[in-house]
C-alpha cells in the first residue's frame, strides 16, 4: 500500500489544553505550541502521517487527515 500523504492537521483549539505531548513525541518535530499554548503544525511538509500525535493526545484534539490515491480526503482508521 502506498504511504499515506498528509492533507492537513485538524487541531481543535477549543479542546487542546497545551500539554505539549504531541509536540514532544512527534518523531519529525512538526508541531509546536503557539503563544496561546495551542498545538500548531509549523512544519507540515515534514509530517510522515504516523498519527502518533493523534493517538497520544489526551484531549482528542488532533486529527491527521490524509489523501488517498485518488486525492480524496480520507481520515485514516486506527491501526497500521
Amino acid at each position: 500500500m502506498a504511504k499515506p500523504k498528509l492533507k492537513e492537521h485538524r487541531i481543535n483549539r477549543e479542546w487542546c489544553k497545551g500539554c505539549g505531548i504531541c509536540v514532544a513525541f512527534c518523531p519529525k518535530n512538526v508541531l509546536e505550541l503557539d503563544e496561546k499554548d495551542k498545538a500548531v503544525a509549523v512544519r507540515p511538509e515534514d509530517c510522515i502521517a504516523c498519527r502518533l500525535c493523534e493517538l497520544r493526545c489526551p484531549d482528542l484534539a488532533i486529527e491527521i487527515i490524509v489523501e488517498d490515491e485518488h486525492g480524496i480526503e480520507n481520515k485514516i482508521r486506527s491501526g497500521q
Partner: protein
Amino acid sequence: MAVKDYLRERFFPHIWCAGCGHGIVLNSLIRAVEKLGMSKNEIVMVSGIGCSSRISGYVDFHTLHTIHGRALAFATGVKMSKPELNVIVPMGDGDALAIGGNHFIHAARRNIDITAIVMNNRIYGMTGGQYSPLSGYGTLATTAPYKNIDQSFDTVQLATAAGATFVARTTTYHVQQLTDLIRRAILHEGFSVLEVMTQCPTYFGRKNKLGGAVEMMKYMQKATTPIGSKAKQKNPELIERGVFVEKEQPEYCSEYEKIIQRAMASGS
C-alpha cells in the same frame, strides 16, 4: 465509525487536567472499540468514583457512573442479567485496589467476563493527592509529607493470584500497545485485568518533582520493557509490559446458565 461518533461531544473539552493520562486511555479505548467494529449498543461501561471513573461520562455507550470502589459489583449485576453485552470497567488505583480491593479479587476469582482497566496514576487524584496502595515506598503525597512507608501492590501479581484469566500491563506512552491490549482484554472471555501506568502531573508528578506530563511519559518509556526482554535480565528494576496471563477457564455467567438449566430439569 469516526472517533467522534463514540464520544459525547457535548461534554468536551473534558474535565481532566492538561496532560492527564486518563485522556490517553480514553483515546486508546475508543480506537480499540473502533477496531473491534462493535456497535455502541453492545457495550456497557460501569465506573466508580475518581478522575479515572469519569471516563464513563465521555463515551456514548450504555454507561453507569456508580460509587467509589463498587463498580465491579454493579458491573457483575449488569453482566449477570445481560451476559450478551460487553462490560468494561475503568478504575482508578484507589478505586480498584484500596476501597474496591475486595470486589476486585472476588470478581477475578469468579472469572466473570468483565474487562477491568486499572488506570494506575499512583495517587488519589480526584481528592487532592493522598497516597494509594500503588504509590510505592518512599514516595510523597499530601498524606505522606515525610515519605510513604507503605509497600505497594503489584497489580499484575495480585490479579493473577486472585484468578483473573487475562492479565496485562502497559503505559500511556505505549499507545499502540495500549490500544491492542484493550482490544484483546475485551475479546477475552473471562475476567480481564489491564493495568495502565498513567500520569497525574497535577498531584503525583508535582509532589514527587517528576516534571510535567511529557517528563512523566518519558519516565514510563524508560522504566518499562517488554516481558522477558534482555534489558530485564540486565536490570531487574525494569517493569514489564505485555500479556502475563491468557488462559481459558469456565466463565461465571456460562456456569450460572448451567445452574439454571439443571434447576429447570430437576424442578417439577
